[in-house]
């Protein structure tokens, strides 16, 4: 049995870092507010959400057709198309392409899929030098941590953390935490790596079946440097990224950055159709349980995700506990519904790392029923006997008491007596989590029922 990730404990640790948590919550809520502001300027927004959802559902319910169409059209353009059943095969395909081309150093832009496949350590173990080019990803790479947010991977760090990290790794001034200074230092450090890289790798936000091309959205332009400078470009694309036609991109590109950051488009929206002049292009279509998830009536809608991050921006649990508390590639609400599909055992606590407020479902541009799926994953966890023992026992006891009116009323009486008579030092003990930050409710001395019997009973029907 795998060691289960304990998001509550990890979240508690982050909350203990007061300045980190306060800054994180403020910045990420700010992204939600920016999303609101930009959506307010698009009166047809709810119509677009419905279109985006339907286009994705159409594509997924015809996925075999669109995958074949994409492969056909991509191949016509001179793109090499590979298929990987799982993470291991993806990594091995990447390695064999790199090895065949004598690649020693690789520069890559952000790809959640490559993160999911643990590609970087795989390649590094085989002697390939891998550099993350996205600033946030590079910060995380240097920290030896996974990304904490899909769009801004290092948002949980303070500028002082980055200053200290760069001082150790890039030789910058540890006393200078000005983000302009630090970003410039990264620019100067990254440029020679781009120039000397033998290959560039990207992910893809969308793969267009009609044209055989794919789209990568960044704000830094790092994907473009990696794709346009080295002679070899490899893109990893999850099979769920397919969309039917070029014109469908209008819907998604209009929604992606507004949902993520509140700007109408990312600074760079790059479309790749076949190799650049003098270059070679490889695309790896990856399954890695996506086709299995497709077959799940409760959970296949999660495949509509366009990786905007709006759900994590709005999630009150994510903002307080931080993205690293999920212990997985995907964090936030989308992580809660994706990760247990990869490893139910390891991620069995994630569905409970949510107050079920439902805000995520409301901001999702493709109308994934995220909150409903979180609820359903809880049933899967409980149904597989994977609930934490205390909770399992507690729920059974509660269920039994609440099913029997006499037991329930007895329990109420006990609770009221305990509340009124237990001394404070006993009541607020380590086994009383409520009491850690909250006062217990006071015992009113009677219940509604007893009041009703006294004040209305004479009119009660038998």
């Amino acid at each position, binding site marked *: 049995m795998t060691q289960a990730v304990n998001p509550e404990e990890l979240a508690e640790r982050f909350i203990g870092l007061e300045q980190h948590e306060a800054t994180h919550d403020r910045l990420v809520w700010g992204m939600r507010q920016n999303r609101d502001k930009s959506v307010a300027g698009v009166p047809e927004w709810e119509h677009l959400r419905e*279109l985006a959802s339907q286009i994705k559902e159409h594509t997924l*319910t015809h996925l075999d057709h669109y995958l074949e169409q994409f492969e056909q059209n991509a191949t016509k353009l001179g793109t090499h198309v590979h298929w990987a059943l799982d993470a291991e095969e993806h990594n091995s395909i990447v390695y064999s392409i790199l090895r065949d081309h004598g690649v020693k150093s690789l520069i890559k832009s952000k790809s959640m899929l490559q993160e999911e496949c643990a590609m970087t350590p795989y390649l590094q173990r085989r002697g390939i030098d891998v550099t993350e080019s996205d600033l946030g990803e590079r910060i995380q790479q240097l920290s030896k941590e996974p990304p904490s947010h899909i769009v801004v991977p290092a948002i949980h760090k303070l500028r002082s953390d980055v200053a200290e990290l760069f001082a150790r790794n890039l030789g910058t001034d540890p006393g200078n935490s000005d983000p302009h200074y630090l970003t410039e230092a990264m620019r100067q450090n990254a440029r020679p790596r781009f*120039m000397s890289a033998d290959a560039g790798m990207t992910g893809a936000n969308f793969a267009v079946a009609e044209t055989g091309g794919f789209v990568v959205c960044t*704000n*830094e332009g790092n994907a473009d440097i990696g794709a346009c*400078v080295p002679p070899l470009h490899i893109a990893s694309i999850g099979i769920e990224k397919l969309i039917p036609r070029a014109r469908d*991109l209008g819907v998604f590109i209009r929604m992606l950055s507004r949902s993520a950051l509140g700007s*109408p488009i990312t600074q760079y929206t*790059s479309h790749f*159709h076949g190799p650049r002049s003098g270059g070679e292009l490889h695309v790896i279509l990856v399954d890695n349980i996506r086709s299995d998830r497709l077959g799940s009536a409760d959970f296949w809608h999660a495949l509509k995700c366009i990786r905007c991050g709006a759900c994590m921006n709005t999630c009150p649990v994510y903002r307080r506990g931080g993205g690293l508390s999920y212990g997985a590639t995907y964090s936030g609400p989308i992580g809660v519904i994706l990760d247990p599909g990869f490893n139910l055992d390891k991620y069995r606590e994630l569905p409970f790392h949510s107050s079920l407020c439902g805000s995520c479902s409301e901001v999702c541009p493709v109308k994934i029923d995220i909150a409903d799926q979180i609820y359903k994953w809880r049933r899967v966890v409980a149904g597989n006997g994977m609930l934490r023992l205390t909770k399992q026992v507690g729920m059974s006891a509660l269920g039994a008491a609440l099913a029997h009116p006499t037991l329930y009323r007895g329990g109420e009486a006990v609770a009221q007596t305990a509340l009124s008579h237990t001394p404070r030092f006993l009541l607020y003990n380590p086994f009383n989590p409520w009491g850690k930050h909250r006062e217990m409710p006071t015992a009113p001395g009677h219940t509604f029922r007893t009041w009703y019997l006294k004040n209305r009973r004479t009119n009660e029907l038998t």
Partner: protein
Amino acid sequence: MNSRERILASVRKNLPRPAVPLPALSEPNGKRVVSALGYKEHFTNLPEVQHSPEDTELLSSFQKQLEAMGGRWFTVADAASVRAKVSELFPDARVVCSAVPEVPGTRRVERISDPHELDDVDVGVVRSPLAVAEAGAVWLTQSELVVNALGVLAQHLIVLLDPSVVVATLHDAYEQIGLGASPYGLFMAGPSATGDIEGVIIHGAQGARSLTVLIVPPQANGEGVA
């Protein structure tokens, strides 16, 4: 069965039913958005949003949005004015790599075969065939860039734009750009940017430090391309 066959077989076996038809991309009734300038009111009050549905406002909407994305623009009259503006904005530029007849530059991109040769470019000059008002973005392909890396390796980028090629939304843009005709196509909205360190927006993260759009229709050269 190889992986391709296995994946397709697994997909076919798992296709959710009933199948969902492809929706028509209809435009809902109401105003089209070409400029989304946001709002300042509280949640309970209706937002005050500025829309610019008129075609005559496409250029001004594009200009406003370009600025919001961190870019800047100038209107210039002719090729000589373009050259003057470039010198005025970047007096210390040593390497000016141009793809346009209006600006000879110190290096012609048509002569470059290897993108690595563009590492030292201070200013790149290209012309965009189409801009999108709602996004403040210009469209550039391998045809305009010649060497794709010019768009991201130049320290500063200047983009010439005919004012009559501005369309309202990305829907309009995708109808017109003939996606797939070029191996590379880019919507560039402002300079390179990042907010990865405490959400502070920095321009010039990896790509161009600045994006300047010079609004001028294509001009006959005047000075002769070397």
